[in-house]
């Protein structure tokens, strides 16, 4: 008799997206709950035995009551067992989101795995070994007890943990709450369901990160999925089906403009294949453009802002390079020209403290000039 479950993690419910103004942020917040509901529906559809959430269900222990209540409501679509593991964001402190949830009344099918004790909810066919974090940063490896945890011989052993697997994660992943890379092997686990890394990743033998089901940052990794895991019998190989549940695409585009036009940026946007309404785009611009092109770019970006769910443009690295045509367009004589020349001189002097201001001033003057219909 096998065990089928959905492995997910890092829901980060209650994440406020405060740097996204107004409705954009509100939608992003709301979507995370909707995605949880989608997971519940999937679990129900696929007749999963359980949904194991490997930590960071909540963005923090101090989320609002409302968030907890809505979360519990979103779970209703799945009647099977939910196992929630406290992670670093929602550690099982003396007072935590979990104690609060308990106070509100937790349905029977919801297990808060805040004690390092084997969970036997599936008639002995599978035992879940949770490694809850009871501080934000545990000094000791919380999974160690897995090795000695006794389970019936015919039970499938599933580990549930939250943290970074030592020496395995790419880049500068945070090194707290470390989990030894060979934990699954040493503890005889059939599957180690991990959370913390927001992308889906098979980090070691029988050790998987599911990633966050709803992307929440511009990071080029596999997020927006859950794992439907099926283990036919103890020590049988795990079968993983990756299911897309994410709604929003968080994309970062870095564009350098080298030909003096803004074509490259506009092309990058035109190349977006996803549903524009679901796109949360970070556009990092660099290079140089003429003032005329800058003017065109700004008009075009305004249009794109309306099309996309959110467009954030970082043009700090994009420099205006006024051409003679630009400047002549403003004026060829008189005091205006004198001012233009002075601003240009300032702009071209790298030692001038106002070089940036002069660059922008020229752009402003150009825009004023254009705005006057000239």
């Amino acid at each position: 008799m096998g065990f089928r479950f959905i492995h997910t993690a890092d829901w980060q419910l209650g994440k406020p997206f405060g740097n996204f103004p107004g409705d954009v942020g509100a939608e992003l917040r709301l979507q995370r709950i909707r995605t949880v509901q989608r997971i519940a529906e999937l679990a129900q559809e696929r007749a999963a035995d359980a949904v194991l959430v490997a930590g960071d269900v909540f963005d923090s222990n101090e989320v609002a009551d409302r968030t907890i209540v809505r979360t519990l409501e979103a779970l209703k679509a799945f009647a099977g067992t939910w196992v929630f593991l406290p992670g670093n964001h929602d550690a099982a402190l003396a007072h935590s989101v979990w104690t609060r949830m308990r106070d509100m009344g937790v349905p029977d099918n919801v297990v808060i795995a805040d004690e390092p004790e084997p969970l036997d909810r599936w008639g002995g066919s599978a035992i879940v070994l949770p490694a809850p974090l009871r501080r934000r940063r545990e000094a000791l490896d919380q999974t160690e007890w897995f090795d000695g945890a006794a389970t019936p011989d015919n039970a499938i052993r599933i580990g549930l943990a939250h943290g970074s697997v030592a020496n395995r994660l790419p880049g500068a992943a945070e090194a707290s709450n470390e989990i030894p890379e060979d934990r699954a092997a040493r503890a005889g686990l059939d599957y180690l369901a991990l959370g913390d890394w927001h992308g889906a990743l098979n980090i070691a033998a029988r050790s998987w990160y599911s990633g966050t089901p709803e992307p929440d940052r511009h990071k080029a990794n596999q997020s927006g999925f859950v794992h439907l895991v099926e283990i036919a019998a103890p020590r049988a190989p795990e079968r993983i089906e990756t299911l897309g549940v994410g709604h929003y695409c968080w994309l970062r585009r870095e564009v350098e403009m080298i030909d003096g036009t803004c074509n490259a940026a506009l092309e990058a946007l035109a190349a977006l294949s996803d549903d524009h309404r679901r796109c949360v785009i970070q556009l990092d611009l660099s290079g140089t453009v003429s003032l005329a092109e800058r003017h065109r770019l700004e008009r075009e970006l305004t249009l794109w802002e309306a099309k996309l769910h959110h467009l954030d443009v970082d043009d700090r690295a994009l420099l205006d390079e006024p051409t003679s045509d630009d400047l002549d367009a403003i004026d060829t004589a008189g005091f205006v020209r004198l001012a233009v020349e002075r601003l240009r001189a300032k702009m071209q002097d790298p030692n001038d403290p106002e070089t940036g201001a002069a660059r922008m001033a020229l752009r402003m003057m150009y825009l004023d000039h254009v705005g006057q219909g000239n």
Partner: protein
Amino acid sequence: MQIRRIEIRDFRKLSHVLIENLEDGLNVLVGDNEAGKSTLLAALRAVLFERHRVSGDVAARMQPYGQSVRPEVAIEFDLGGKSWKLRKAFCQKPEAELIGPGERATGDAVEERLAELFGFNPPGRGQSKPEEHQGIYGLLWVEQGGSHRSLGVGAGRNMIASALELEVGEVVGGERGRALLAAAEERRNGFWDKRGNPRGDYKALRDEVAALEARQGDLTAQLADYDEKIAALEKKSEALARYGREDHHGKAMLSVEAAKAAVQRSEKLDAAVKSAAERLDRLRLERDAAAERKDAREKLAAAVEAARKAVAAAQSEADDRRALLARHEAAAAGAEANFAEARKARQQADDRVRAMEQAIAHAQAAALLRDLDERLTAAENAEAKRREHTAAAEAITIRKPDIAALEKLQSESDRARLQLEAASVRIAFEPEGARGVSVDGEAHDAGEPLRLSRDAVLELQGYGRLRIHPGGGVEALRQAADAAAASLKDRLAKLGFADLAAAREALARGVSARQEADALAKTIAALAPQGLDVLRQSVESQRNLAERPLTEMAAAITEASDARLAELIAAQRKALKAEQSAETALASARTGKEEAGREAATLAERSAAAQRRQEASVQDLTAARAQAGDKDLLDALAAATDAAGLAEKQHAEAKAALDAAEPDAVLLELQRAERAERAIRTDIDSLTRDKRDIEIELKALGRDGLGEQLAEITGQRDAAASRIAALHAEAAAARLLHDTLAEAQRETKDRWLGPVRERVKPYLKLIQPDSDIVLNEDTLEIEHFVRKGVREPFHSLSVGAREQVAVIARLALADILRASGQPSAIILDDALVNTDEGRLERMHLVLQKAAQALQVLVLTCRERDFLQLGAPIKRI
């Protein structure tokens, strides 16, 4: 343009004026006040700038007063080296003609051609106004009284501006530049207020970031607090769990029980000690009582002996005092007798003095009575005499007027008689022999002449009768004499006197009697000043005094005198002194006696009391011995002492047993155990309570979703911070753009006015070295005059200075126009009337300098001022 010839007909007050041969350079046109020099300027303006068809008020004003004629103005002028003739007639049959090199225009074409030639914009209709419609001539032709006002550049501005641009090139930005500057200013104003502080959205965003940061700090602090609470909760739970695991409270309770048992044991021993101590106390008290009783008996015996001694001493002292008292009594009796004697002697001296005083007073009263008596007798006598004289005076009734009347009657009678006698016939008889004569039958002594004043019959003896009949009024005289005599006699009879002498004598007597009475009245007043009656009463009362009876002793005195009295008084004083000293001695003796009496009584009482005490003590002793004999008391004391000694020993043993049980330590141990138990219990309670409180608090805090809020605020702050960073850059750029544009504009404007400064300089040098005129870049009006580096607003200069500065500015602007190929005549109508003589000379230099290149027409009413100018003078 140079004007060469002007001819005016029927224009306002000018019926005909012709001015010819106007030269290049300076020309002076002189006209007295009212001669019409200002009209001349108006005519020039009219011919150049007014449409010849102009009608209405404008046309009407050209007419001479009260006439309806055809005003006509014709001028000849050079323009661009060519000669032109212009003629216009107004009002009736308006007409215009312009003849130039190879061209001739008439009618409306003239107006268009003029506007073209002189670069002005004629008005659509109505009057041509210098500032609006006359181009540079609004500026260069100055009306009388207008020279000190602002330049009135007006419509000339553009011509001057293009002239300036010809010199310095196109330096202004034009409309586009102004629009850009306006846009830059608006943008800058969107970011910055006048004081350079952020405003509007920029400020709002800055404030928002600050507010968000404050909120973030606040939330962070709250969250830290929240975390602290969680940590505290952790600690409390841990502590409670430890108590549970290690059962500290149970152990403490056992410890309390053990300590309580030990205390009970120690309490029992303590009770034994206490009962032994009580017994010991009781036996000691009994022993003490026996000893007291023995002592009391001994004291009683001693008291009896002491009382006996006291009685003996008191009696002896009382005897002594009694003897002393007897001596004092004797002394007091002696003093009494002395005092009685002294008193008697003093009383006798008193009597003697009184008798002497009485005797002296009596003698004085008798003397006074005598004196008063005498005065009364004299006064009464005088009164009697006064009354007699008064009566005599009153008896004489005649008065001085009566006498005067009598005297008058007497003299009248005498005079009548003398007159009669004088008129009477005096008959002297010279009888021969003794022949008698009788008159009217009566004999008459013939020896006596006879005076006859009436018919009489004389019988002369011997002769016969002689009838005499006196004539000559004798009869009347005789009757008058008779009447006077009768009157006198009658008056005398009435008064009661025989003749006048008797009357006079009576009057004298009356006066004398009155004087006498008055003299007597004075005498009486001297004797009895208060009247006779008072004097009489005084006599009577004095008499009573004098006749009072004398005491026997006084009566016996034969020699009463003051000297004697003095002797007696001295004796009296001596007796008084003796009496006083005897009295003092008596008082002292009495005091001594009384004191001795009191002491004797006291001692007697004391002796009696001692006696009583002795009797009482003897009685006490006897009674006591009757109850218990002295030996019984001694035996009882010995028995009680033994019993007490035994009880002491038993008590010491019980105490030793108690000490061995360490009751203090046992008690301390109990207290410690109880305190420990209590402390543990309290701590558990308080931990439980605190834990519950913290849980409640955390629950409440959790509802608000602090973490969510903080994350949200942090996100917002980050977003706002990146927005504000962009705005900072924009704001700085906006300011830089505006500043750069404004600065550039300022500089180019400065360059633009450069030619004006150059032109002004040589003129200013002539009147005020080291000065400058500052024009407004836009309007070209004079803004400031700079003297020695001090800027003064044009309008605050004196009128004189203003007109000089304004004339120079006009000349400079005309210079600029000339340089751009537009030489233009300048007309100054009494433009320097407010300039003092000294300056006027310098201004003439200025005009001459300007006239080197320009035609200048000076209209003036002050010919004298300009005679020395060396310019042709033409009169209107």
